[in-house]
C-alpha cells in the first residue's frame, strides 16, 4: 500500500530568498552621515598644487579662484591648473638678496594687468599664493613687494584648515 503523501511538505511555501540587508544599511547610513558632515556646498574652487605642502592655519575663509602663483623650493610658477605650471622666477633670483622685487615676476604681473586693461577690465588687486610651508620668509617678502608693485595690494595665502583650533 502506498504511503499517504506528507501533509507537512506540501504546505511549505517556496518563497524566494531575501538577503539580510540590515548590516549593509547600517554601513550605508554611517558612510552617508560621514559624507554629509564633510560635504561643502560651495565646492572646491582652489585645488592645491601638486608637489607642495601647504601650511596649516586656523582661518576659515573659503578660497576663491583668482590669479594664482605656486611657490616651491625651486621657484615661482604660474598656476595653470590642468596644464603643467609655468616657471616665472627661478631659484637663483629668489636667493639673490640684491633684489627687493623679483624682475621676471614683476614683468609677468604687469603683463597680466596690461592684458586686463586692454580688455577693458579694471585692474586686478588680489592674487593667491600657494606656497610650500618651508619656503623662507625673505622669499615671501620679495613676492609680496613685487605683487604690491604691480598693483596687487591683496595677497592671499592658500592654507590647509586646522580644524582642531575651532573644533
Amino acid at each position, binding site marked *: 500500500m502506498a504511503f499517504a503523501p506528507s501533509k507537512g511538505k506540501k504546505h511549505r511555501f517556496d518563497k524566494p530568498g531575501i538577503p539580510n540587508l540590515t548590516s549593509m544599511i547600517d554601513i550605508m547610513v554611517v558612510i552617508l552621515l560621514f*559624507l554629509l558632515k564633510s560635504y561643502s556646498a560651495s565646492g572646491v574652487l*582652489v585645488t592645491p598644487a601638486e608637489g607642495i605642502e601647504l601650511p596649516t*592655519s586656523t*582661518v*576659515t575663509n573659503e578660497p576663491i579662484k583668482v590669479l594664482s602663483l605656486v611657490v616651491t623650493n625651486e621657484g615661482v610658477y604660474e598656476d595653470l591648473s590642468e596644464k603643467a605650471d609655468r616657471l616665472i622666477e627661478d631659484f637663483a633670483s629668489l636667493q639673490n638678496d640684491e633684489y627687493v622685487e623679483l624682475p621676471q615676476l614683476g614683468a609677468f604681473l604687469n603683463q597680466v594687468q596690461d592684458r586686463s586693461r586692454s580688455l577693458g577690465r579694471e585692474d586686478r588687486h588680489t592674487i593667491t599664493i600657494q606656497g610650500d*610651508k618651508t*619656503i*623662507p620668509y625673505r622669499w615671501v617678502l620679495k613676492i609680496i613687494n613685487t605683487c604690491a608693485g604691480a598693483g596687487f595690494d591683496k595677497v592671499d595665502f592658500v592654507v590647509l584648515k586646522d580644524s582642531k583650533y575651532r573644533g
Partner: protein
Amino acid sequence: MAFKPSRKKKRMVANYEINLMPFMDLCCVIVTVLLASSKFVEVALLEYATPTVYESGTGGGSQGDGSGSVGELLELRVNVTYRALEMSVFNATTGDNYASFPKKSDGNYDFEALRKKLVDVKERVVGPPITRSQQRNPATGQVELLEQYKFSDGDQVRISAEGDVPLQTLVRILDTCREYKDNRGIFRPLFPSPALGQIQ
C-alpha cells in the same frame, strides 16, 4: 448541536518585512554623489592686505608712557628670530612693554605665551574701542565693522622675521596675532591688521 470550528485559526500569520530595496538604491545613489563631490583636504585663504603703516617720526608717536590719546601710536612689533619670539610696544626694549619668548625645549616657538602677552597688551594698553562704525567695503560689497582705538594703529601688528624663517611659522604668527578665545570661549579680534617687514 455544536458550532463548526472557525476557520480563522487556520490562517497563516504572515511575517511581513519592509522592502528595503528602494531605500538601499537611494542610499547608494547619494553616497556615490557625495563621494564624487566631496573634498577631503580642506583649504582656506589667509588674507593679507598691504596695510598703511603708521610710523612715529622723530620725537613723534608715543614715547612709552602708554597713557594713550587719539592719534598716538602703539607700535606693536613682533620679531621672529631663530631663537625666540620678541614682542614690544612703544618701541620698548625692557619692562612690561617688552617680552621675549625663547624656543621651547622641543625646538618649537612658544606661540601660546606670545598670545597671552598680546591679550595682555590688548586689555591693559589698548583697551576697548572708543568708536564703532559700519562701513561697506567697495571691493567685497560686505558691511564691515570698523573699530577705532585710542591708538591710531590699535589693531595693527608689525611682524618681522629672520630671512630663513619658514612660511609655516609666519602663518602661525599671523594666526596668533589675529584673534583669541576669551574666557567664555568667544573668538575676539586681537590685532587683525598685520604688516610684514624686514627685521630691525
